[in-house]
């Protein structure tokens, strides 16, 4: 079984990130060096001795979103129009701009270096990245520090694009209110461009049926490239909620951390070193405080401890009796 190491990005990683992230995100990746609220986790195959310097995937974990700059999503609701005297009963979908997920944690920027991955890995790595980020949130919830995030996590999935790369949802809605070039705004402001654009968007509920059909059809639709991410989120208990992205209309998956715990139970237990572990299974493990996560072979014992081969522990730097956060639902 192959080891995987996930750790926060550092400035030194910037040159190797260009394969994963667009240019405008690289700066954000570097500036997040010491910001625990905004972690870009990089996934490296193998242990430290393998000197893997180029990550094969990444995921951003934001612990408390929208507190410094407001974040916006469209809430997808329903309004019933009923007129008894005409015998009419009509349901209308509505979109309302709001900041509903403020304070939640967010998974974002999930990228994998697909050309360097085996086909099977292309499905597994997103799962690993999602599970690792969630493990850190689950750990934090057990030992909440000051300013802990609310017990919710969201992840906006990329939405539908047409053949030219344009987002039909934006073309049918946002463009009428911000006619500027979105790529340029994105390059200049990064994700913050959505906050700036939201100032130009309607503040009152919009009736969906007023939008042109392509825009309506894009509401909640997922880009085909994001299917692995969707599956990974679904396995961990995240589901499409009632919000969509204000640019491409992609669905915002969401879950309460209680539900994440049900899908991915975690244990806080001391490490028991063994010369040999029978039938090792992939375990996803984090230490007490830092944001490094390991995927290593080991097993959970009946007493609630975690067992690991001494050689493996030495490889990743764990020691006997060290307290670890473990989930047995790691994905190799």
């Amino acid at each position, binding site marked *: 079984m192959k080891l995987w190491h996930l750790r926060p990005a550092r400035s030194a990683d910037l040159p190797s990130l260009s394969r994963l992230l667009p240019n405008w995100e690289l700066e954000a990746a570097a500036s997040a060096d010491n910001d625990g609220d905004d972690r870009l986790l990089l996934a490296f195959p193998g242990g430290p001795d393998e000197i893997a310097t180029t990550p094969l995937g990444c995921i951003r974990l934001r612990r408390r979103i929208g507190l410094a700059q407001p974040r916006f999503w469209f809430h997808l609701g329903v309004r019933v129009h009923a007129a008894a005297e005409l015998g009419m009963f*009509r349901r209308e979908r509505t979109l309302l701009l709001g900041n509903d997920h403020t304070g939640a944690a967010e998974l974002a920027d999930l990228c994998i270096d697909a050309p360097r991955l085996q086909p099977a890995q292309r499905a597994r790595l997103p799962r690993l990245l999602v599970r690792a980020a969630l493990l850190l949130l689950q750990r934090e919830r057990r030992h909440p520090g000051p300013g802990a995030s609310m017990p919710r996590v969201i992840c906006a999935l990329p939405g539908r694009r047409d053949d030219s790369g344009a987002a039909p949802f934006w073309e049918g809605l946002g463009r009428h209110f911000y006619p500027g070039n979105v790529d340029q705004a994105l390059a200049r402001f990064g994700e913050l461009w959505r906050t*700036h*654009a939201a100032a130009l968007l309607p503040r009152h509920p919009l009736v969906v*049926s*007023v939008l042109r059909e392509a825009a309506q059809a894009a509401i909640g639709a997922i880009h085909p490239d994001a299917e692995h991410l969707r599956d990974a989120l679904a396995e961990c208990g995240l589901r499409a909620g009632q919000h969509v992205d204000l640019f491409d209309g992609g669905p915002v998956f969401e879950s309460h951390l209680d539900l994440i715990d049900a899908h991915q139970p975690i244990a806080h237990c001391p490490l028991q070193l063994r010369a040999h572990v029978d039938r090792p299974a992939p375990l996803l493990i984090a230490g007490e405080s830092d944001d490094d996560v390991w995927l290593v072979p080991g097993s959970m014992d009946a007493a609630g401890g975690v067992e690991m081969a001494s050689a493996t522990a030495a490889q990743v730097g764990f020691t006997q009796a060290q307290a670890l956060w473990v989930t047995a639902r790691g994905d190799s």
Partner: protein
Amino acid sequence: MTDAIPTTPFLLRACSADDLPALERFAAASPVGITTLPHDRAFLTDRLQRSLHSFATEDASGEEIYLFALEDLASGAVIGISGIAARAGFNDRFYSFRNEFVVHSSKPLGVTTRIHTLHLCHDLTDVSLFISFHIDPAYLDTLAPQLLSRARLLFIAQHTERFADRIAAESAGVADDNGRCPFWDAVGRRFFGMDYPTVERLTGGRSKSFIADLMPPSPIYVPLLSDEAQWAIGQLHPIAELPFSILLDEGFDADTYLDIFDGGPTVQERLAMLKTVSRSRILTARAGPTAPERATWQLVCNTDRQHFRALLLPAVVAGETLVLDADALDRLALLSGDRVRVAEFDVPAGEPR
């Protein structure tokens, strides 16, 4: 004035019970969008009875409807119909869209946009409402439409206790001969789920509470509508152009409200601000010879409610006296010495005929 005074062969009077055939004739010729005269004999009979009662009653409650008939005196034919509803939406709300503009701004993006929105509102509830303007097309190029429309203001000015201090009037919006209406297709159809002629038949007005049940309470953002629907906002059906121009000349505001169904402009203004009302005054009618060189065009009506009559004619105003010939006095059902309400009329270019 020239030495030959053109006679005005038109008389506006309160509708009588004999006017039902004329009402039916105009209702049959109404395009979709003129909601106050559906082609339905029972409805028209009821409406006429209601008008007769309104003119007659001393106990005005606000639900009165006053219908007027315009006669071609040469033939005796009724060539036009117009009316006033004392209170729009009486006993219920009267719905309109109000034009509003919101300015959105993002400093970082360097963008400021002015967005046109339509708000469903009840602002015009309980104002007095001009209704049922219909005229025989053969008379469009005469002064007949002027008398048919403006004499209503003289009636209101004479009987102000029966009306609100604000007047509104709907104008038919854009619709084709089949009743297809781009504004309705883009807005109302989404909420009512039926075509425009059907909803016209079902609703017959803007005062039904189910409108609120079906229409969205939040504003409609105009940029999201189809180009065709955007273009139709505030546009007139060709049949409405002449009566609309008369209302604009009176000083009505046409920029604030729209009809919720066809997007045609709903004009409104304070009564006192309207030209005919502000110019109108009470004079004493005197029989006398007309003096062409001193005559000016005047809208004239008697002060009677039930036997209301009005003319548009050249006449001499001398101090507090209006000099009228015997024919005019007779048509107005006046005797020399009676009081009349008079408002000077600006003859449109190319008129009169």
